[in-house]
């Protein structure tokens, strides 16, 4: 296989240098993008890259390297430099050998060859037209595709490769400076990539939330639409990383087996799932990825691990390496039993928020945060949308809010965009007693 050249050269040199363990991964990516603003394309991008990631160990020392030049001499020279650096770095620590296997892998086949002929500019134009037809006056966004191959070879005999496809769209429509709506489409296949729907939703929401009014600061029940909920749940998923726990940054430290959320709340990490655009059949240590409930019926079931954190915690591998930090792949929150309309109908005084950004923490360990709604939001009174609102900020403590979630939506949507890194299949969540504040002046 032509692409295996750099991997072969790197693994061969790792062996000849006498490393104890190695994991070599080649990422070969062809990314296309059409960006647009004011109903017009602003740039088209084509990014071709190959990146070789090399992890090696010797005794109680290890190192992780990344190289972008793929000639044989460069690769071999790089591996030798890594080996020398590792031996002189002085950074000794305790870590286990790479997991040995043998492993069984299951590639879910989520690759769409149609990505090769995808008409980025044409689809961007269709997005803009759909938003304008739905009432938008100005439309902006980015439409991105990525066709990529990943090859892994480890000292424990793992040799795997897979090819995948990503289609991603984030569109934002405006009807006024203070009235905007967001649309998202995320998929691994063109058939499931509905840019018109995303454009239409963004345009409709921009039209519906014109002339927003102020609301009084205070405590409100907040209905977090899937985009908002996914952003917050991303921080919940981060807190399940054993690295975060060990670093003293997780609000879940000491909570394994305990109730950490509403009993109806279940959060699952999927190494592979249909239309999960970050799917992989193996992690960075060659361990097969899995589907694991992280929080099940409100109870924290597991932290996610690489081999180092699993050894420290005396836990089983979860297939989530990251050499340094274990991380989730694609996350899913199980749907609840209420439609969005029912969630609104059951709210006496609240705010329905469709999007947010700029979440920041006073304390990661306590999950004390604030975040800013953006795009369409409405005041809810006596079970009805009263009027659009703008200029508010939400704050609170994530661990408390997780327990206080009192309704989970039945409709779910894949969310991934600028503010939500991890692809998340997410319903709406309703959270009582969220602090809502406004700027003075």
């Amino acid at each position, binding site marked *: 296989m032509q692409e295996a050249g750099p991997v072969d050269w790197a693994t061969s040199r790792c062996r000849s240098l006498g490393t104890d363990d190695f994991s070599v991964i080649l990422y070969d990516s062809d990314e296309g993008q059409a960006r647009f603003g004011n109903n017009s394309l602003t740039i088209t*991008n084509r990014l071709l*890259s190959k990146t070789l990631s090399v992890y090696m160990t010797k005794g109680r020392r290890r*190192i992780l390297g990344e190289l972008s030049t793929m000639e044989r001499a460069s690769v071999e020279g790089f591996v030798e430099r890594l080996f020398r650096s590792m031996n002189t770095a*002085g*950074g000794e620590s305790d870590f286990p050998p790479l997991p040995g296997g043998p492993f069984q892998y299951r590639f879910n086949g989520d690759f769409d060859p149609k990505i090769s002929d995808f008409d980025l500019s044409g689809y961007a134009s269709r997005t803009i037209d759909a938003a304008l037809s739905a009432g938008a006056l100005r439309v902006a966004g*980015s439409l991105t595709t990525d066709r990529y191959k990943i090859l892994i070879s480890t000292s424990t005999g793992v040799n795997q490769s897979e090819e995948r496809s990503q289609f991603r769209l984030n569109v934002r429509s405006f009807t006024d400076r203070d009235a905007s709506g967001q649309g998202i489409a995320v998929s691994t296949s063109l058939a499931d990539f509905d840019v018109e729907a995303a454009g239409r939703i963004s345009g409709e929401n921009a039209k519906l939330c014109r002339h927003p009014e102020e609301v009084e600061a205070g405590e409100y029940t907040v209905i977090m639409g899937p985009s908002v909920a996914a952003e917050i749940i991303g921080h919940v998923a981060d807190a399940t990383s054993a690295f975060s726990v060990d670093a003293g940054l997780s609000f879940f430290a000491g909570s394994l087996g305990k109730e950490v959320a509403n009993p109806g709340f279940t959060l699952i990490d999927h190494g592979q799932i249909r239309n999960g655009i970050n799917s992989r059949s193996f992690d960075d240590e060659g361990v097969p990825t899995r589907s694991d409930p992280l929080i099940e019926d409100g109870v924290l079931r597991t932290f996610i691990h690489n081999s180092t954190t699993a050894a420290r915690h005396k836990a089983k591998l979860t297939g989530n390496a990251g050499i340094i930090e274990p991380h989730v792949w694609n996350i899913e929150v199980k749907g609840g039993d209420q439609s969005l309309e029912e969630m609104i109908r059951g709210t006496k005084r609240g705010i329905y928020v469709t999007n947010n950004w700029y979440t920041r923490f006073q*304390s990661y360990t306590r999950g004390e945060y604030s975040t800013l709604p953006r795009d369409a939001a409405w005041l809810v009174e006596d079970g009805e949308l009263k009027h659009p609102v703008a200029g508010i900020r939400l704050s609170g403590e994530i661990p408390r809010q997780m327990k206080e979630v009192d309704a989970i939506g039945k409709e779910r949507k894949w969310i991934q965009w600028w503010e939500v890194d991890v692809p998340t299949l997410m319903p709406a969540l309703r959270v009582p007693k969220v602090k809502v504040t406004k700027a003075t002046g």
Partner: protein
Amino acid sequence: MQTLDRDLAERAVEVAVKADAEYAEARLQRSVDQVAVLKNGEVEAPGYGETLGLGIRVMYKGSLAFGATNALERSSVTELATRLTKQAKASAPYFKEKIRLSREDVHLAKWRAEEKESLDDLTLEGVISYLKDLDSVAMAAGTDVKLVSRVLYLATEIEEKYFVNSDGSKIDSRVPRVMVYAILTGASGGNLVQRTAQYGEAGGWEALKRIGVREKVGEEATMVLKILRDAAKFVPGQMDVLVGHEVAGIMAHESVGHPSEADRILGREAAQAGESYLTADDVGLRVGSVEANVSDDPTLPHAYGHYLYDEEGVTARKRRLMAGGVVTELLQNRETAQTFGVDSNASARAVRYDREPIVRMANTYVEPGDYTFEELLKEIPHGVFIKNFMEWNIDDKRLNGRYVGHEAYMIEHGEVKGLVRNPIIEISTPKLWSSVHARGRDMEFGAATCGKGDPSQGAPVWHGGPNFVVKDIKVGAR
């Protein structure tokens, strides 16, 4: 490690122009990175990276295309330059607003950021040894109560570029950078205090000494424990605020720098980083008091966001964004400058070879005044000194900002009193800048990584300023 093959970049521009591009530029960029993490004294796997690639941007009849590759054979570069020009041609009908670039001077230049102790000679051993020393400093803080967790991160980068465009500019540069990031946590009796701090400069290994990272981490660790032990509950109310250097910097960055980015004002970043409360007609608009003076200067020596030419080959200079409370200048690249009918002020930055140049801040700060610290205090009968912050955010038009204090003290009759916990400034941008009353003469800068762009570009920046007095505003509590 490969050297920069300048012919490749020049070849890319020639090929694009031959294929009918009206404008073409190429940026050959090499980065060498070292990174180490110490988590509660334990060394995580250190990292070393070498990245070399070529970014090419072409324009055809108002259609802009950017591409990048790290396959640096002549044939691959030729193919990409040809493909991008075809892509620009094919996409041209979809560019309903045609893109034009301002005319700028041609430069042939070579420049390097000052570097006394070269990062070329730096070993991971040196990096890890430095972090272990920092960790021991953090651990030494406190007597009966110690920090419950320390995460220390040190990254170095050597960035070398060769820029060439079809106007005839050819610019070589080299910028080394060092950066330390610390997360320090103290906990006792059910209370918890956490502090993140980032230090960075353009320069060699000597920059860490110049910044005084060792001393600062020690002070931060001590302060976390002091706040934990001594800080009283903050009583919210209407009062004066003495804004510390660090808070001044983030305010300047978030509520003056970002809204002054011309691409945001024009709607190009609307779906990601957002827009601006300023419109295209707002140069000359009064936003603040005469004491509100904010600038951005890429040329500041040693600054984390230091550069002398931007990624479009334009000579960098200081930009006065707000002078005497009036919006005086926006941050412009060649594309936005053409739309505004002005010259570019060299605001185009790209953080890697495979990222397009977009409008960015460099080093944004409140200009100094002439007050001493004691004189600033005398202006405050009742208020709070918010020296630095943890949580902060702002809406995507940059009107509604929030800054939550970390180290903060009450001020009574011009005297600094006891520590208080987490005072919150949540204020509109015009209210903030129109309430600026007096500025100190001493300046301090801090490092940060500013996010913008899609694909994402985390750009190294400084922000800072003097301590300054904000009169009679509402201050809240958590």
